[in-house]
């Protein structure tokens, strides 16, 4: 790992703050979808290997994920992950009581994809505002499988991994919002953070 690539304390603190705003928007959207409060963890920012990341997420056998690429001044992959059963519960809450369990299962993939689309866009939109930049957001891509299947990052040793736990307060189900920042855009990203921090401190 190249030490120069790591974020210092101030950069990390600022990044967490930016994501706090973003996930606030994401949680607000999710909360409107499922009609209940969403409890959020403080964003966990780590610079880790893909292997360690898979280990961290390995607790669940089947994970449903929706990912969307983010391209702009830096590139990242954003993902919403819920264990399969929990993702069914989220879709059920979105559709309301009028649908049978069979219909919910049938609509699971499309429903969860749309939820991912909304939640990830809310977060990315807020980040774009903070960075005063425009990001092109790719189409949502749905996957189900083990952590290994779902969490595939481009061929690189280490990734910046930002994880936020989302808990549906009434349904008691938990998911994660993840941003994987690609190695190539990491130095750009660090530069942008520093510029913003400088801007803030000079005011």
């Amino acid at each position: 790992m190249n030490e120069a690539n790591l974020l210092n304390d101030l950069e990390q603190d600022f990044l967490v703050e930016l994501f706090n705003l973003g996930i606030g928007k994401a949680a607000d959207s999710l909360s409107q979808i499922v009609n209940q409060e969403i409890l959020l963890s403080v964003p966990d920012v780590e610079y880790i290997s893909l292997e360690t990341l898979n280990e961290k997420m390995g607790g669940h056998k089947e994970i449903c994920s929706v990912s969307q690429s983010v391209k702009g001044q830096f590139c990242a992959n954003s993902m919403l992950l819920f264990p399969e059963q929990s993702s069914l519960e989220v879709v059920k809450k979105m559709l309301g009581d009028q649908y049978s369990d069979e219909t919910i299962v049938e609509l699971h993939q499309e429903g969860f994809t749309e939820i991912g689309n909304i939640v990830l866009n809310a977060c990315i939109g807020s980040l774009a505002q903070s960075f005063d930049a425009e990001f092109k957001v790719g189409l949502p891509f749905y996957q189900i499988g083990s952590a290994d299947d779902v969490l595939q990052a481009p061929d690189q040793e280490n990734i910046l991994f930002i994880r936020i736990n989302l808990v549906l307060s009434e349904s008691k189900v938990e998911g994660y919002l993840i941003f994987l920042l690609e190695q190539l855009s990491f130095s750009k990203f660090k530069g942008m953070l520093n510029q913003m921090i400088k801007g803030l401190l000079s005011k």
Partner: protein
Amino acid sequence: MGQVKKIMIVDDSRVSRMMIKSIVVDKNPHWEVLEAGNTDEALKLSINQVIDYFSVDLNMPGRDGLELIELLKPEFKSSKFALLTANIQQATHERAEKLIVQCFNKPVTNESINQMLRYFNE
């Protein structure tokens, strides 16, 4: 309010179309609803039709919702267009404003769809 109007809902997510349609029909039981899953389908379906309102998703495979609206506008000069999108970025809203399209933020909720319907009924 009780008039029969025709609305086209364009969204690649079937679930979103179902949710939008159910709120629209609940408020306006007499309205006719057309559904399309992408821009090409919407263009084909709109031929020789009189459509009063369009509810269009932004992020769709192929040509996006704003491109669709640009293509539809010359044919539907007196129709109203709503862009329903999860993309809350200012740049997107500015692009929509240029086309004189009103943006409504997803998720699909009673509130967001009622806002859109109020805009249609203005």
